[in-house]
């Protein structure tokens, strides 16, 4: 498996382990409908983001060390760059679509943490699409 596909899998796993539980809890009506500012949810998001960064940091260091010791650590080549371009383009479409939904549609029928969580979910969704597109591209062209 290419080094950059492993990085994509690591990122997907980190997001599933952190933002999965966050949205499972914070996405419930009971959690979102408490009076503002409802900083409890902000703290939960900060913890999820912190844990995600820790998983990514440790995972990347470990992968880098492993690949280097096996002599597989190389600079990205033209195929890696093509896959990255495709992945970022797909993620950008999701992000723009999501932001239009959250910023232009949701204010007419929602408020408070519903909008905040929707915006955060769109950012996470864009990242999921980014790394999932990379994984699928590496699998398809393998």
């Amino acid at each position, binding site marked *: 498996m290419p080094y950059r596909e492993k990085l994509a899998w690591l990122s997907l796993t980190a997001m599933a382990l952190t933002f999965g539980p966050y949205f499972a809890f914070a996405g419930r009506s009971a959690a979102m409908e408490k009076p503002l500012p409802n900083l409890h949810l902000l703290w939960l998001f900060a913890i999820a983001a912190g844990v995600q960064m820790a998983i990514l940091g440790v995972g990347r260091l470990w992968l880098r060390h492993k690949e280097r010791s096996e002599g597989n650590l190389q600079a990205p080549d*033209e195929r890696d760059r093509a896959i990255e371009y495709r992945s970022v383009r797909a993620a950008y479409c999701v992000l723009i679509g999501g932001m239009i939904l959250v910023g232009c549609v949701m204010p007419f029928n929602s408020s408070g943490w519903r909008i905040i969580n929707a915006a955060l979910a769109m950012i996470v969704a864009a990242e999921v699409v980014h790394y999932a597109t990379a994984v699928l591209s590496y699998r398809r062209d*393998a």
Partner: protein
Amino acid sequence: MTPRTISNRIRALRFENGEMSQAELGRRIGLTRQTLAAIEAGKYSPSLEAAFRIAEVFKLDLQQVFQWNSEDSR
């Protein structure tokens, strides 16, 4: 419309040139082993520059390494 494909003889050429590994060929032209494997399997079409570099390693012309399988030639 029948899809056109690019085929190549890289695998055969590697073996004819001292059983050169994919990693070794990749290192000489700046591609990863996985990308070389994808090119050999016909699942990734290299850039023109990479194709010329590959042909240069084997001291051949581009068309002796890569073939364009057009509809007319089928």
